């Protein structure tokens, strides 16, 4: 009798864990619109290559303009495109904000506007998605903008958050090494 209760309890526990893991990975593994995700990924990849070429030619303004166009396109939500869609968005926004911080004289934007761009790129669900370097970079860039605004406490908080993400990623790297 006692053994049966224990078996049932273990089964419940296993089922609950499986469900939790499944739900946590649902966005990543099963985007509701895989076709849109493929189209988005192709677009982003092509645009990244174009931006690389523009930067190689020294056309920073062109690269920023292209990233702004990319930014304004409709982005897939996490439900539509899974975690990958959000990572792609974070990558594009991160590149845009990096260039804007490195070249503040080109099409200048106020720091508050940059913060808005970062918030728009991160969205509300960035803490829920699987840890990745693009999100970490965008969080770190938010820290840099806070720093420019002399909001050092906020900056340190953002850096801590980004460092935590990168620490997780580095641990994964070390764990998956040969």
């Amino acid at each position: 009798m006692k053994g049966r209760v224990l078996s049932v309890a273990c089964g419940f526990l296993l089922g609950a864990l499986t469900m939790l893991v499944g739900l946590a990975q649902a966005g990543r593994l099963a985007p509701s619109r895989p076709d849109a995700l493929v189209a988005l990924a192709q677009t982003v990849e092509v645009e990244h290559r174009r931006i690389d070429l523009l930067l190689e030619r020294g056309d920073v303004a062109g690269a920023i303009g292209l990233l702004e166009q990319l930014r304004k396109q409709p982005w897939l939500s996490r439900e539509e495109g899974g975690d990958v869609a959000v990572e792609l968005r974070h990558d594009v926004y991160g590149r845009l904000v990096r260039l804007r911080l490195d070249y503040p004289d080109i099409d200048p934007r106020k720091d508050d506007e940059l913060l808005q761009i970062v918030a728009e790129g991160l969205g509300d669900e960035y803490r829920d998605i699987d840890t990745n370097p693009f999100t970490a970079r965008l969080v770190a860039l938010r820290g840099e903008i806070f720093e420019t605004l002399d909001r050092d406490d906020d900056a340190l908080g953002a850096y801590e958050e980004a460092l935590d993400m990168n620490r997780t990623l580095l641990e994964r790297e070390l764990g998956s090494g040969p």
Partner: protein
Amino acid sequence: MTGNERERPHAGGPAGPAHPEWEAELRAGLEADGGSGSVEPELAIARLLVHAHRLESLGDESASRIWTDIDRVLRPVPWWKRRWFTVAAPAGVAAVMAAVLIVVIARPDPKRDPRGDVASSADLLEQQFDLLAPKARAEVSRTVDAGRGQLRGELIAMAMAEGGRTHGGAP
């Protein structure tokens, strides 16, 4: 009239009880009168009064010593010898030394950006991104490729089903 003037004998014989010869003259006069009666109690009072009346003269050495004592009491003590200074001075020196140590040891490097820690964090994060991004991009590509393959499969299946229906319905 000073004490010395009082003690000074008058010219022409002892003038009063203060004179050393006055008592001898008194006793001589009593013996000459027949020695009747006693004046000893009166003489004792006279000696007491003479003693009380006589001012003690101080020698130069004694006066100098007394004045030295008085001077020592009255003269203000220099500030560096006062008690509060003996306490306050070491405390002040210790405080100054501590302040100097703190300033010297904890002095911010003028070449260093006061927000250097924050800035170095940004640099470190960017370096980490450069390290991690290529693999993450490859991972994204793999995921998208898998989705693309699945999509292709679905499209082929749809096309085959559509084509089969068309061919099947053709005459």
